[in-house]
């Protein structure tokens, strides 16, 4: 068993190549170990001190969010709150203030929970993950990264160093909502992220919806551009999206909800997420997170 705190990225990558597992905030790794779910890895390299992985940089291509950026930073970052609002909505719902202080976006993505809140907004915003190893660098779409509950296609010596989000077009908006039984320390019963681009007449130019906790991974709803592209955001359009989301979901029954309830509610969440995204695309400011602004979820 060994433990080291990496002071450079190369040091961290060398440790991974030698068989160590990375730890950032530990909010998944340590909790799972304390809970008896899975023991701490034999060899650990702590990456929390790598400040170059904690930066958010903006360019003409879009946004590069370092893997160590915390949920607390994401929910209040002005550029994310305005242009990538769905990601801010989701970050604001994660755990509690302390969870959001230690929890990182890279850790969240690589933990690959199908119930992760940031997953659906990242998916609809077209994010990809930048993976580094001691021998190279590659960029992977999230659809290719997440292969099952808690499983990614990354090799053991690869470290997620950043999430890359393409630049947002004009007249676009995004949102994330989740069904919850309580306001904090909650895991999504179901959730939905939506991103939409409107044309000059307010009709849908393109749309993406992704779903939380209704499949082995975060899943994207197929065929929406064909289904509702060119249409106005109205009751009929929102209903069609809700129906498609519910139809494509493959939820399970567990302690939090039955499959039937999840299937119904994920349609409702998809509808509400798209409605909020469209209102934002039209220029309206909806405070973050949408769950609180809309009064979705647990009452106080």
């Amino acid at each position, binding site marked *: *068993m*060994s*433990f*080291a*705190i*990496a002071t450079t990225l190369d*040091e961290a990558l*060398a*440790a991974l190549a*030698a068989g*160590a597992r990375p*730890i950032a*905030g*530990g*909010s998944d790794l*340590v*909790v799972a*170990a*304390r*809970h008896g779910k899975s023991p*701490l890895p034999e*060899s*650990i390299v*702590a990456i*929390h*001190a790598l400040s170059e992985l904690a930066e958010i940089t903006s360019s003409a291509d879009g946004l590069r969010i370092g893997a160590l950026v915390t949920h*607390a930073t994401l929910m209040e970052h002005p550029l994310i709150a305005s242009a990538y609002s769905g990601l801010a909505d989701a970050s604001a719902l994660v*755990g*509690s*203030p*302390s*969870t959001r*202080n*230690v929890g990182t976006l890279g850790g969240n993505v690589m933990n690959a929970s199908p119930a992760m809140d940031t997953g659906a907004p990242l998916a609809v915003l077209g994010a990809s993950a930048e993976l580094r190893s001691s021998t190279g660098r590659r960029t992977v779409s999230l659809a290719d990264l997440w292969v099952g509950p808690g499983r990614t296609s990354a090799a053991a010596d690869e470290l997620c160093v950043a999430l890359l989000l393409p630049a947002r077009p004009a007249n676009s908006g995004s949102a994330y909502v989740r069904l919850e039984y309580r*306001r*904090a*320390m909650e895991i999504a019963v179901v959730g939905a992220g939506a991103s939409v681009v409107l044309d000059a007449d307010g009709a849908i130019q393109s749309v993406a919806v992704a779903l939380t906790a209704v499949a082995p991974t975060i899943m994207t709803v197929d065929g929406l551009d064909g289904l509702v592209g060119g249409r106005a955001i109205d009751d009929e359009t929102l209903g069609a999206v809700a129906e498609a989301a519910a139809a494509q979901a493959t939820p399970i029954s567990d302690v939090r909800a039955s499959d039937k309830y999840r299937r119904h509610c994920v349609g409702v969440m998809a509808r509400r997420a798209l409605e909020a995204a469209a209102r934002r695309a039209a220029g309206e400011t909806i405070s973050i997170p949408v769950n609180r602004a809309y009064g979705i979820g647990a009452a*106080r």
Partner: protein
Amino acid sequence: MSVPLKLSIDLNVNGVDYPVTIDSGRNLVSVIRTEIGLTGTKEGCDDCECGACMVLLDGQPVNSCSYLAVQAQGRAITTVEGVMNGAEMHPLQRNLLDAGGVQCGFCTPGMIMSATALLSRNPTPTDEEIRIGLSGNLCRCTGYVKIVEAVARTAAG
């Protein structure tokens, strides 16, 4: 660069450096309580849910049950013992007693840490902001109303 299982490190708690020799897998709360001997920080659920173990790491609240002690080296750890001003209670402690926000007291140290972090970031929180600031802390006695009231009183000075 690998180091052995047992690590000798310094942990800075409430401004004092404590040398400790610990297993790399030890959680921060157990080191604070049993190696350093500061027992104000409580261990509740040991599952990152209840907030009884809340400490500040560089001023930010962290569940110390689910944080590796070795990752806290080189950082400023604040526990409930560190919020007093000499022998004088922190105004929040006084207000919690006055408002009836302390019953069994087990959640109180964690509540104080979350609330002090909130107030240093946001000196004039709304009731809603106080509730969000304390949302990682469970209390099974008070029903929260009096705790929120104590934080609001502290904010009002």
